[in-house]
């Protein structure tokens, strides 16, 4: 009898364990990488030549800096290795950077990094997205860079607005936990040939932009189904960035998403889909889908950053161009960052700062941004010939003045990954009104 009950207990316990095992092994999944896109060939400096950009503070002799980073393509991976090699061979402080690559994994990079650092992993510096900052700051994992910045002459080479974003992410006025590195500023890609077919010019106002979306929705064969949709609307993961431009276009804001202006912007977003100006798959379309739809000629416009410009040019040559998101009652575009941080647990913070400052304004900045097509934070590098002669980079730079970030709170990652796409899905599919959707989004972000 005892034996029988023991067997029963074992079966019940095993089943319970199988159920609870769900908590193990969580990870993310998304195909978009934050800087994704084709690399242009970047000129690697001749290491034998002296360059003025290499660090020269001999306070950290012989230190080793453990650096964890993600690279979106094999080309970017090689580029980072080249930059590390260049730094190791040219810095006068004898610092050795040891690079450890990890996949972006749809944001899983940050989660894995959090687990590693909490577990005591030996990491001094990591590449970063601002949205992860509150989690790490709340757990006292990041080093305050203020003492280093106070004596660093590179500070003025980076726009004050960027420094403000870095400080704001940490939630403390007196501390800067994040070092700027490069930017991805969203703008509108469009097909000049389709604009010509529709008989329109590049829109200069938000209203004209909405009209252009309608005008470039074209039913060429007259079967009642558009052959070209005006806008590659992103209702799935990552859609909060283009959506934010619509909300601000009507004068709304992220701070008060329930205002009449914000709701009007949301209604525009919904109307683009419900009026048939975006592909029917838009409620679930993410990065891959909007890019594929644009590449295939299914959409006339879409919103993304320079990371996809190489692929666009490869497919369309000159029949693709870009313009900044037009101004309406307000104006906003996403200015996503890729930055770096130094961990509080690092025993080589000075050496680590040498490395991150090299990436922010030194030769490392030039090599990385020219190689990836991302926008440099260094004014000096930005003024270089490479960035002045590229129409996509120009659209980015023109957008820099009104670029911003989604409010960075401890709720932001969940808001971006699940709340936003599902709530937008409900709104696009008519399950909730624009007002109800905005209330949900407001409550979830500021709870």
């Amino acid at each position: 009898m005892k034996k029988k009950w023991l067997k029963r207990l074992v079966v019940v316990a095993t089943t319970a364990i199988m159920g609870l095992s769900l908590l193990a092994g969580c990870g993310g999944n998304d195909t978009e990488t934050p800087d994704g896109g084709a690399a242009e060939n970047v000129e690697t400096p001749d290491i034998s030549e002296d360059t003025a950009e290499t660090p020269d503070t001999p306070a950290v002799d012989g230190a080793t800096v453990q650096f964890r980073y993600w690279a979106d393509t094999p080309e970017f991976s090689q580029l980072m290795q080249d930059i590390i090699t260049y730094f190791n061979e040219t810095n006068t402080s004898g610092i050795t950077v040891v690079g450890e690559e990890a996949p972006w994994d749809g944001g899983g990079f940050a989660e894995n990094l959090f687990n590693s650092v909490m577990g005591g992993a030996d990491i001094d510096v990591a590449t970063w997205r601002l949205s992860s900052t509150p989690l790490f700051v709340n757990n006292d994992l990041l080093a305050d860079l203020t003492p280093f910045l106070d004596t660093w002459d590179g500070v003025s080479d980076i726009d004050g607005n960027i420094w403000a974003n870095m400080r704001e992410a940490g939630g403390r006025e007196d501390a800067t936990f994040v070092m700027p590195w490069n930017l991805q500023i969203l703008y509108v890609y469009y097909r000049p040939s389709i604009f010509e077919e529709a008989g329109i010019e590049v829109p200069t106002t938000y209203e004209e932009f909405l009209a252009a979306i309608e005008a470039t929705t074209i039913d060429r064969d007259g079967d009642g189904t558009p052959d070209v949709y005006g806008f590659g609307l992103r209702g799935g993961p990552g859609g909060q960035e283009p959506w934010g431009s619509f909300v601000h276009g009507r004068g709304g804001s992220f701070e008060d998403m329930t205002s009449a202006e914000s709701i009007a912007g949301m209604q525009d977003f919904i109307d683009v889909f419900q009026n048939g100006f975006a592909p029917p798959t838009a409620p679930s379309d993410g990065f891959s889908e909007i890019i594929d739809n644009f590449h295939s000629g299914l959409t006339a416009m879409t919103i993304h950053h320079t990371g996809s410009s190489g692929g666009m040019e490869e497919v369309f040559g000159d029949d693709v161009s870009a313009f900044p998101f037009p101004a309406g009652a307000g104006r906003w575009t996403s200015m996503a960052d890729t930055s770096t941080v130094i961990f509080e647990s690092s025993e080589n913070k000075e050496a680590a700062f040498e490395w991150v400052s090299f990436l922010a304004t030194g030769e490392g900045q030039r090599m990385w941004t020219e190689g990836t097509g991302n926008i440099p934070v260094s004014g000096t590098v930005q003024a270089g010939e490479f960035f002045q002669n590229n129409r996509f980079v120009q659209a980015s730079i023109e957008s820099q003045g009104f670029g911003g970030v989604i409010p960075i709170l401890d709720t932001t990652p969940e808001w971006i990954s699940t709340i936003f796409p599902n709530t937008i899905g409900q709104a696009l599919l008519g399950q909730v009104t624009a007002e109800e959707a905005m209330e949900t989004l407001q409550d979830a972000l500021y709870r």
Partner: protein
Amino acid sequence: MVKKRSIYPYLLVAPAVLTILLVIFVPVLNAILMSFQSYDLRRPQEIAFIGLENYRAITENTLFWGSLWRTFAWVGFGVGFQFIFGFILALLLNHSFRGRGVVRAVSMIPWVTPGVLIGLMWRWMYDGNFGVINDLLNRLGILSTNIPFLSQVETALPSVIIAIVWQGIPFFALMILAALQGVPSDMYEAADMDGANKVQKLFFITVPSIKNTIFVTLLLRVIWVANSVDIIFTMTEGGPAWSTQTLSVFIFNQANSLNLGIASTMAIVLAILLVLVTIPYLRISFRKED
């Protein structure tokens, strides 16, 4: 004379017992404890014991109830169709025909394919713009415009259920086929002599003979499918508009958001539900032993 009990056997099993305790029971116990705490790593300063508050919170969350009902649909339809088609496949494979070995091997492919790959494959096939399913239906004249299968609420859940059905059929087929081959042929011969037709033989000989296998297989698949995240997450991430978010996907999302208290609470609810599913199995199996 009392025989002295040796400590030696206990020493031998101790490493295994300790390992099980450390890698299974400690994390499970930890999950149970977390379900009674406001354990949100985004707000570590606020971690505290809150009793049954997490349990109350999830019962007031409409997303939880929606996810629970979708879990029933996901498991019910998913496992149900796997069983029906798996049974049919097993009956077919139980007959000898030319190339049976090849068919058996090929039919196992869905089962050995990783869930993430299955999710990606079906997502591409379902694609509302360029997917092969829309293309085929258009060419056959069944559709005039594409259906965005994974982008609308009405079709998203059935679409992911079809994917898991496709994955699970071979497992049922394999298990049932093995059981079928253990049914004595003289029973069928006796039934033939009594004039039983094929349907009677199926329901009065085949099914009763393999019912234990069917029961165990169903039980295992219910547990696995209820816990599975990979296919749904790869295909829809629980969307659009939460329409494919099952309880396991909800738990996964909450754990990913570092809200481990709520995630643990829902995991325990799911575990209790799965324990309830095993009770009929326990009753039947122990009644048989008695």
